[in-house]
């Protein structure tokens, strides 16, 4: 079990309030991702749940028990740190065994779980090495191994992949997602990378300056961003945001159209412009279009290889049903 509830939780460091009153529910078995720009309070929120920071006010419940005053060691949660935080003086085996030894598990049980974890994480050959002799990816695996052996009610990850190179990151992302599918244990995952959030989460929590901007599944956030911040943050490349007369025509202060919802047409396009940069990826082509009079640059994604190049005129047809409308406060209009 691992149902986590935050009730009116706030956190201040001295005079500065980092988390204004915040309410959040994470259901048992969910893969929740906290995403937002750096410095928005994701780590702080995770550390509040872990118990590594004290709440300034409010309550934290794990499986309906109030743990606000409970020390981190007694909350039954596991954490994987960005810097791995392995014990440098212990071998991989001892690192993984550590939480079990502290919990007083029998030697046999420890050994059994170490082997299971090591096999699933490809660490069998490295059990007798010290962390200093491992690569970044292996260290992160050890940190994950140390987290899973104690059977926590939830896993907490704080940007676990951001110290790895791009190729490894994709591999580890898949491994963690698979691990979640297999174990069905609650996971809370912090990242500033919206691609990680979209690919891994059941539930994305978008944060800005300690405030939850929106909570929802990846597709809910993609299809119906509740405000301009979420609209601009979720999706890659970013949604095109247009204000002015073009927006007023739709009865909004700002309209947003995702690059994949603008078609490149031969003639009769609603918008025209000049190709600035064309990125040919084979499967798709990205155009960065200038001179439309709508925004400085419009990003357009065309399927397949479209052979327009720098300086060519381009005609664009936004799909009317895919236009997002926002009011003067940046909130979504129905």
């Amino acid at each position: 079990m691992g149902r986590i509830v935050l009730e009116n939780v706030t956190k201040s460091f001295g005079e500065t309030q980092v988390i204004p009153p915040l309410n959040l529910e994470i259901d048992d078995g969910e893969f929740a991702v906290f995403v937002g720009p750096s410095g928005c309070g994701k780590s702080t929120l995770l550390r509040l749940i872990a118990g590594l920071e004290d709440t300034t006010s409010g309550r934290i419940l794990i499986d309906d028990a109030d743990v606000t005053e409970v020390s981190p060691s007694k909350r039954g949660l596991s954490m994987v740190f960005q810097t791995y935080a392995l014990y440098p003086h212990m071998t991989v085996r001892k690192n993984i065994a550590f939480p079990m030894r502290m919990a007083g598990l029998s030697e046999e049980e420890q050994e059994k779980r170490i082997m299971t974890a090591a096999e699933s994480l490809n660490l069998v050959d490295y059990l007798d090495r010290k962390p200093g002799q491992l690569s970044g990816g292996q260290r992160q695996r050890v940190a994950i191994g140390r987290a899973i052996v104690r059977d926590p009610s939830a896993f907490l990850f704080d940007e676990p992949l951001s110290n790895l190179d791009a190729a490894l990151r994709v591999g580890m992302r898949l491994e963690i997602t698979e691990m979640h599918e297999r174990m069905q244990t609650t996971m809370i995952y912090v990242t500033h990378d919206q691609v990680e959030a979209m690919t891994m989460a059941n539930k994305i929590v978008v944060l800005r300056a300690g405030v939850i901007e929106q909570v929802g599944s990846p597709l809910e956030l993609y299809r119906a961003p509740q405000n301009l911040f979420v609209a601009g943050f979720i999706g890659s490349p970013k949604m095109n945001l247009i204000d002015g007369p073009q927006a007023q025509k739709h009865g909004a202060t700002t309209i947003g159209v995702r690059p994949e919802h603008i078609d490149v047409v031969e003639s009769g396009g609603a918008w025209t412009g000049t190709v600035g940069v064309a990125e040919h990826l084979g499967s798709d082509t990205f155009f960065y279009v200038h001179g439309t009079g709508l925004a400085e640059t419009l990003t357009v994604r065309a399927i397949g290889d479209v052979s327009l190049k720098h300086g060519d005129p381009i005609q664009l047809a936004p799909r009317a049903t895919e236009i997002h409308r926002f009011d003067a406060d940046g909130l979504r209009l129905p």
Partner: protein
Amino acid sequence: MAIVAQNSKYGKAGRTILAWGVGLLFFFPIFWLVLTSFKTDADAVKPEFLFFFTPTLENYLNMTENYDYWRFATNSVITSVFATLFTLAVGIPCAYAMAFNPSRGTKDILMWMLSTKMLPAAAVLYPMTFLTKSMGLFDTHFLVIMVLSLINLPIVVWMLFTYFKEIPKEIIEAGQMDGVNTLGEIREILIPLAWGGIASTALLCFIFCWNEAYWTVRLTTTEAATLSKLIEGNRAPEGLFFGRLSAVSAAAVGPIVVLGWFCQKQLVQGLTFGAVK
């Protein structure tokens, strides 16, 4: 550094000579002390016997037979060892809390602790003497151990704090997440990780305790008197017994010189606060 590197051959030789020169300069008084300890009191003051004299063991024999050297030495060992252990037992949890759970006042407390070292010892000599006498603690091992501990605690906490600061906070937090309590955290993670630093701190603390003279001389008479007191007792105002005094001094500094010799590496690390890796 670049210039030194270019002329590395001469630079290295020069530095070696310089190091030896400074080393010998510092070592000379000890050498002279040991030399004098093998002279009779009469020979010790005669310049013609500066290097050439008939060595005698009389001073050393005299010391063990008449002055009960071993009792003073035992007291020195007991008080220094227990004071060091007690200082670490208090200092490690203290520095741990300051390094990993700092509050707004932590820096001020550290400064305040160090500032106690700025108080002239003489200023509290009379209160201390009266208090300890009226409490019946005068000339007891307990008193000496407490005094040695307390005067070394600030520097020990400072040193440990500096070493603990080098341990990433996440490792300590990982321990907490892994279900270990504070004591376990200190035993399983902190002490193994800061072992080098703790060892050099302990060593330095032990040496300070061993060499302490102001309080050990004044707060003891016989029962808890340390080697410092023995030296002090052999000091004659007329300056007559240089041979005897030298033997006592040599026997007092001897153990610490040997200890220091074997732990050179740790000591250098301790004194430079880990700056030399």
